[in-house]
């Protein structure tokens, strides 16, 4: 178990390194000169050159990367061109907003999608289930920025229930959360439904029914306990993806999270800030993935005892 965790941590570090290295190189190969963003209007070539020198962008890319690594090992991810502050600190300031939004979205998704999926599986092939099924297909098909704008127009502009954007109060989280959750609910409830239909029709369930086990216990303790593994995996993957910045939704709602930060950093060619964002979110996503993988053996004895019986 310990070796497994150590191996996974090693993999995590390697993946994060590769991700950051890729972003580092791609940023510098992409068109656009950061210096132009930070120079006074109509800069002279000398002024631009001075800024490039200041940012270390005059060096060849391998040299830049080597310097970056040296600083990284000292815990210095670089200084934001725009904020003139350590990039890591800027990212960590924004991170709680993204984590809050991601947690809220995944909680809302779970508490709606799981009962909905179970209900659809139990009412399989009835007209009401068909209605719910069409609803989930619709939810799956709507782009999130569009849902975001519709909710904004409806609830913020017309009904004025919420402030249209930014983070003013606890209520500000509702619209972005709902926007993210609609797509996730559609996806996860369909997964739950599919897994539940299989498990509800399996022989062990019929035999348990013949033993007088109640329908409620059959649904949850039998079928859902077995269907839960792929569902938890999917929820974990979705959550990890959200931590990488729910970019579009954050931009639509002007939510002060990492996604919104990274969009602005890209516009401003703020290389260190982009690199810091990628590093932090990749590590976080990999950590969540590791936690989900560590949940497997707790949920399924066949995984837990796999080594012993094989």
């Amino acid at each position: 178990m310990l070796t497994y965790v150590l191996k996974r941590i090693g993999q995590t570090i390697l993946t994060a390194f590769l991700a950051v290295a890729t972003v580092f190189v791609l940023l510098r190969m992409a068109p656009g000169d950061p210096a132009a963003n930070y120079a006074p209007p109509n800069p002279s070539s000398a002024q631009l050159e001075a800024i490039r020198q200041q940012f270390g962008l005059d060096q060849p890319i391998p040299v830049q990367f080597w310097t970056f690594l040296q600083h990284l090992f000292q815990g210095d991810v670089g200084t934001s061109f725009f904020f003139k502050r350590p990039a890591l600190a800027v990212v960590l300031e924004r991170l709680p907003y993204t984590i809050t939004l991601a947690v809220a979205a995944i909680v809302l998704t779970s508490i709606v999608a799981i009962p909905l999926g179970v209900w659809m599986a139990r009412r399989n092939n009835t007209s009401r289930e068909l209605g719910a099924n069409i609803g989930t297909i619709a939810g799956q098909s709507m782009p999130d920025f569009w849902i975001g704008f519709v909710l904004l127009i409806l609830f913020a502009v017309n009904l004025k229930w919420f402030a249209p954007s930014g983070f003013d109060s606890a209520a500000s989280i509702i619209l972005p959360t709902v926007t993210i959750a609609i797509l996730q609910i559609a996806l996860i409830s369909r997964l739950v439904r599919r897994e539940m239909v299989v498990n509800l029709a399996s022989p062990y369930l019929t035999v348990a029914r013949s033993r007088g086990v109640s329908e409620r216990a059959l649904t949850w303790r039998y079928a859902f306990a077995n269907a839960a593994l792929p569902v938890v995996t999917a929820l974990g993957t979705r959550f990890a993806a959200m931590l990488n910045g729910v970019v579009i939704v954050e931009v639509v709602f002007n939510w002060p999270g990492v996604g919104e930060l990274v969009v602005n950093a890209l516009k401003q060619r703020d290389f260190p800030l982009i690199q810091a964002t990628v590093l932090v979110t990749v590590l976080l996503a990999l950590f969540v993935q590791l936690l989900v993988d560590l949940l497997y053996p707790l949920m399924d004895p066949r995984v837990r005892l796999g080594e012993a019986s094989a």
Partner: protein
Amino acid sequence: MSVLEVKDLQVELMATDDVIRAVDGVSFHIDRGETVTIIGESGSGKSTTAMALLRLLPDDLAVISGEARIAGQDVTGDRKVINQLRGRVVALIPQDPMTALNPIRTVGRQMTEAVRIKYPKLSKAEAKRRALSLMEQVHIRNPAKQFDAYPHQLSGGMLQRVLIAMAVSTDADLIVADEPTSALDVTVQAGILDLLLELQEQTGIALLLITHDLGVARLMSDRIHVMKSGVFVESGPVTDVVDHPQHPYTQKLLGAIPELGPWEDPALTEPSTYAASDAPEAGAPAPQPGSPNGGGTKGPDTTFVKEASHG
């Protein structure tokens, strides 16, 4: 009063654009301590009959009519009736033990659950004690260890013993055994059948046995109903049906049992025939395909055996 009393039971299965009458008016009864067997090939409606009695067929797929009384209560109407009987008055021993238990719960936990459905007042510890003694009763070695095992850690035969123990744990009046040995190795089958006989002797339980195997039926039953296309073509005490089959279908079933006869290798009985020529002549009895000991079986209808054993 019979433990099970079935009168003119019909089961119609709803196919996509067709209605199949899988069970077409069967009537039978089982008294306490009796074993009644329904025998037939796959598709004859024998398992459908059993599943219909336990109401394990989905309502949108199967329409049941007629009358079936378990311990006096008609189970063909409101599902509430069977819900009160399952796991308390009637129990099932399933066909394939390997897929019959929840794979992510220990065997013991599922056993104590079964015990506590019948006896809700028992504490978990008491239910566990009862489960362990039942495991001993069905001859599971080292019950304490197997109690904490997961289904995938036990063999098919062992799982079937667990499932039999669970059925017995309910002190049911009636056990429905749906092909209880079909999915097991031949070497394990005899042990399971012995166990069922032994438990029936101890408890006086009524047993409805579903099988395609006439050998099993002959060993276990008091009475036999031979089923074909949803109806009983022949019914009677086991000795009558087996020894004096009236219906051609029963005769065919009986003919399907490969029986070891005396060794009749023509090479031994007529050495001169083979000595005279190297190759077997056209007229010489050739070894029959499908029988392991060549010409040593008596009149087997091997194609039928194959069909029937896919039960």
